[in-house]
């Protein structure tokens, strides 16, 4: 690996901790971010010459902090701090400061950073944008590309988010245990939204990067909450879903349904990690929505062939999820499993009450059309598929329904 890619990986890895600590010093997101940028620039110059520091995060915090203070002091025409090029490692640094940088603040610093990005005053779109910019360090351009908006629009979204956070007067002391668990839920939701942004339309490179980033954030979160089964569940859910990434799209970028995927293209290493996390989560006997969804993904992962899928198990898991978190979308998903074990008639009955709630939802008409087709009610199915195409969010979704329709109509004609 060359210097540059090593340094970039090191900067990405150290970023949450370093920006979190700088935020603790400066109590201002912009200043913390600028200080980190400055430190990162100096790292690019310094590290190839002096070799990488033993603790890149501590180096970046020190240098970033000094650079920012330096700027302030130059303004005030006072004495500058020692040249940071002289700092090759923490050994050179005054001990008390090094100790303060060490460990104890790590958890609170990173948490505070995540909590600020998920401040309840921020709408979800701003939370995601802010987290990807501040915590993950993606460029505005990268984020804009992933969300299919202009760079200027994304810049504005992030600026607005920062202004709101500044106005909201976020407390900078370490959050108490109750607040911690409340806001943990918000952070998990944000991370899962990042993942779904990447997953839903996916094969674009910028979007796939969002899935990787969400998984990285979940591992970070899991290191902060090592014994929290829902965090294990969230990480497992995303890892298991992402394990199927290579099999989800064909050469033309069209969606391949789970049951039609070439399972040899699933990533066995990721599946192993997802299942391992599920094993850990189950031991706690504290089920939650992420764990159940992960268990559903795990059930799919365990089926060597689509025909081996334990649909009764999946149906039961969806039933549990419905009880925990009643939602028409979950019932719709359950109906797909129900159709497999009790037939399309039962599935249609299950989703009949959902139409008014899901009348704007592409998957509702796609699923109902498929059930109707199985019952030979072709004309009604065709109407539903037409609606699904009109409601599709992406060309890949629309193409998928069209292909589904074509195939079944061809099958019907051949009979």
């Amino acid at each position, binding site marked *: *690996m060359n210097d540059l*890619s090593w340094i970039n990986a090191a900067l990405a890895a150290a970023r949450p901790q370093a920006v979190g600590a700088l935020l603790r010093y400066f109590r201002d997101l912009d200043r913390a971010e600028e200080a980190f940028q400055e430190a990162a620039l100096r790292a690019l110059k310094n590290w190839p010459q002096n070799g990488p520091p033993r*603790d890149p995060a501590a180096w970046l915090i020190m240098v970033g902090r000094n650079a920012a203070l330096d700027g302030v002091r130059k303004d005030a025409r006072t004495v500058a701090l020692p040249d940071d090029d002289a700092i090759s490692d923490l050994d050179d640094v005054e001990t008390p400061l090094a100790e303060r940088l060490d460990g104890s603040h790590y958890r609170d610093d990173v948490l505070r950073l995540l909590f600020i990005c998920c401040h309840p005053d921020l709408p979800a779109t701003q939370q995601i944008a802010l987290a990807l910019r501040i915590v993950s360090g993606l460029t505005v351009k990268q984020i804009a590309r992933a969300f299919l908006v202009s760079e200027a629009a994304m810049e504005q979204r992030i600026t607005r988010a920062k202004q709101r956070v500044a106005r909201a007067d976020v407390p900078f002391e370490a959050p108490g245990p109750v607040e911690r668990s409340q806001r943990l839920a918000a952070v998990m939701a944000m991370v899962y939204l990042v993942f779904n942004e990447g997953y839903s339309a996916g094969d674009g490179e910028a979007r796939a990067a969002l899935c*990787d980033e969400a998984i990285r954030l979940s591992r*970070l979160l899991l*290191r902060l909450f090592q*014994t929290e089964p829902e965090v294990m569940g969230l990480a497992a859910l995303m890892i298991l879903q992402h394990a199927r990434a290579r099999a989800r799209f064909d050469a033309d970028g069209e969606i391949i349904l789970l049951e039609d995927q070439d399972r040899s293209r699933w990533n066995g290493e990721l599946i192993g*990690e997802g299942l*391992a*996390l599920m094993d850990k989560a189950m031991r706690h006997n504290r089920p939650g929505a992420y764990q159940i969804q992960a268990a559903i993904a795990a059930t799919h992962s365990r089926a060597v062939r689509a025909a081996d899928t334990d649909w009764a198990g999946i149906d039961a898991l969806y039933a549990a999820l419905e009880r925990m978190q009643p939602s028409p979308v979950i019932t719709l998903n359950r109906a797909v499993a129900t159709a497999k074990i009790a037939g399309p008639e039962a599935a249609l009955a299950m989703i009949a009450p959902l139409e008014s709630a899901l009348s704007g939802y592409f998957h509702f008409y796609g699923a109902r059309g498929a059930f109707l087709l199985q019952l030979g009610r072709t004309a009604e199915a065709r109407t539903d598929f037409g609606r699904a195409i009109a409601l599709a969010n992406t060309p890949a979704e629309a193409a998928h329904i069209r292909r589904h329709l074509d195939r079944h109509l061809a099958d019907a004609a051949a009979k």
Partner: protein
Amino acid sequence: MLYAVLCYHDENLVWSWSKEEDAVLMDKIGAVRGKLTAQGKLGASLRLMPTTAATTLRKNQDPPLVIDGPFAETKEQLLGFYILDVENLDAALDAAREIAKVNPGGAFEIRPIAVFNPDERTA
């Protein structure tokens, strides 16, 4: 003499490598592994999942306590190991240096193996 080469590195960093960077590195390591294997110096080697997948059994009490996470919270984590079958420490260090050349950063702990029970399962 059998040696274990225990690989320590900052897992935050290692898991921040892009897929491409990781693949390039694994290719390079694969080449060195191939060479050492051909020379009869390298036995089994393995890469561990992130410590977030780890569970620790604390057995200084009865019954032992199951704890989520790795044994120790450290800046650098045990990420994998190689088994070497070489003459002496110098030869072990030479082999470890060859691997280190393509995989810099972190540390290798070279630890002589006292008892080695091979895999005796029948297929």
